[in-house]
């Protein structure tokens, strides 16, 4: 299993996927943090809660980790490399397990890198505007923990979903449509708190939940259920599929 995990991590590290996803995160953070710190009043910026909201943009890593997980699984079918993978490791459940672990690790790493950049960049901009920096307070740092856990979960969720659909582009489009259209729609019925995106958001917030989110513990539990269900269904789909 350790060998397979090593191989899966090598797969992620030997294409430009991580580089592009990393640049996407950095670009997004630069844009959002610059706009916020540049336009908010000094009084507002000085508030610890405001600074926490500013750096919370780093949670975009959870969405990026979801895409990473989908590419790590469905991408193998898109590029046809799944044959090579299964020739070296014919026990497919092990392959699925290694992919889940590798993408969870990669998701957590992305979240750490994303947070590190957002925190440092925000601190530099705040200092440049002569605002006292509170982003390194315990409360703000708890957000990092939430992001790391959430991104690990979405990385694994992406793998399960990707194995289930086995079409990279379709899986990414369906996932984005669900998050951007599906969940807002089910909010009409008032059950969005139990939807996957909202459950993950509950984990990110790590105790600073708004009224439309579950608490951290409940959110983590619901998110874990989604991950486990997707992982099991994806692994079964992989085990039963013919690789032509």
């Amino acid at each position, binding site marked *: 299993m350790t060998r*397979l995990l090593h191989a899966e991590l090598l797969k992620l590290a030997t*294409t430009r996927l991580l580089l592009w996803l990393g640049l996407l995160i950095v670009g997004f953070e630069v844009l959002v943090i610059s706009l916020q710190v540049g336009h908010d009043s000094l009084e507002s910026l000085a508030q610890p809660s405001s600074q926490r909201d500013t750096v919370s943009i780093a949670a975009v890593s959870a969405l990026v980790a979801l895409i990473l997980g989908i590419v790590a699984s469905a991408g193998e079918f898109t590029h046809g490399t799944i044959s*090579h*993978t*299964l*020739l070296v*490791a*014919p026990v497919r459940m092990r392959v699925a397990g290694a992919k889940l672990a590798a993408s969870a690790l990669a998701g957590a790493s992305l979240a750490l890198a994303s947070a590190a950049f957002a925190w440092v960049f925000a601190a530099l901009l705040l200092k440049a505007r002569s605002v006292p920096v509170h982003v390194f307070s315990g409360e703000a740092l708890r957000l990092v923990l939430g992001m790391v856990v959430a991104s690990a979960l979405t990385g694994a969720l992406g793998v399960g979903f990707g194995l289930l659909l086995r079409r990279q582009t379709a899986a990414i489009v369906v996932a984005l449509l669900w998050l951007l259209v599906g969940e807002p729609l089910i909010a009409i019925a008032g059950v969005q708190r139990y939807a996957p995106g909202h459950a993950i958001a509950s984990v990110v917030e790590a105790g600073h939940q708004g009224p439309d989110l579950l608490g951290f513990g409940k959110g983590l539990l619901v998110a874990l259920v989604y991950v486990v269900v997707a992982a099991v269904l994806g692994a079964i789909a992989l085990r039963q599929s013919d690789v*032509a």
Partner: protein
Amino acid sequence: MAETPPVEVRGLTKRYGSTTAVDDLTFSIPAGRITGFLGPNGAGKSTTLRALLGLIHPTAGEARVEGALYTQLQDPLGTVGAVLESDSFHPGRSGRNHLRILAAAAGLSTARVDEVLATVELTGAARRRVGGYSLGMRQRLSVAGALLGQPQLLILDEPANGLDPEGIRWLRDFLRSFAADGGTVLISSHVLPEVAQIVDEVVIIHRGRLVAQEPLEALTTRSAGGTVVRSPAAERLREALVRAGIDAVSVGSDELRVAAAAERVGEVAAAEGIVLHELRTEGASLEEVFLGLTGGGQA
């Protein structure tokens, strides 16, 4: 106790909906030989090979490698090396990194990666992205992957497809060298003249069923079943053969085509005191045999 054949297919059937790709196919291949696996397009060759490699699930029957199902192999890469038809790679990954991933999963060293890259003469392009490789280079990379674990059995699905003459020559030389070192090869191909030059045995399937399996020489000889003889007394020899109950046809002033083994023709000629200038068994080309057996289906 009989030795386990490197590849054994027993009653293999694979259906996709109402389409039967492989139909109760049974054959095995001998160790230390190159066996050609032939059939028209759609005959079920790739399906059979993928079932052998655990990539597709048979509807019925089984396909074993070294006596075990592929999924049961403790060291798959060290047992069998496979080159699949239209092998796919991530275009953004270098050839060396592709092999490093396989090596990592199999617990092999990076040094072994560099060795196989040298074997397939890809060292110079090893760090280039596969998206920029020619078809021939991709095939070599596939072969490198198959050799990583130093297996004694190679399974190759249409490896000559799309290769230029230089690539085909390289592949032929490589397979001969592999077999000369005691390796076993199962190679499917529709490039019949190319296969005829390298295989020792032939397994032919058509519409998912076995049509023939035997040594190449025996197959071509049996299928033609004739002897060509040249003699300055060809007409006298023909009359003697007919008297002996053997069909013989003149095909020139001094040449006969005889429906009997060369030994029998020689005996009749000796008994009549007839001088022979040439006596040879005429074998059909593999392509002729193949077309005959499969009813002229496209190779």
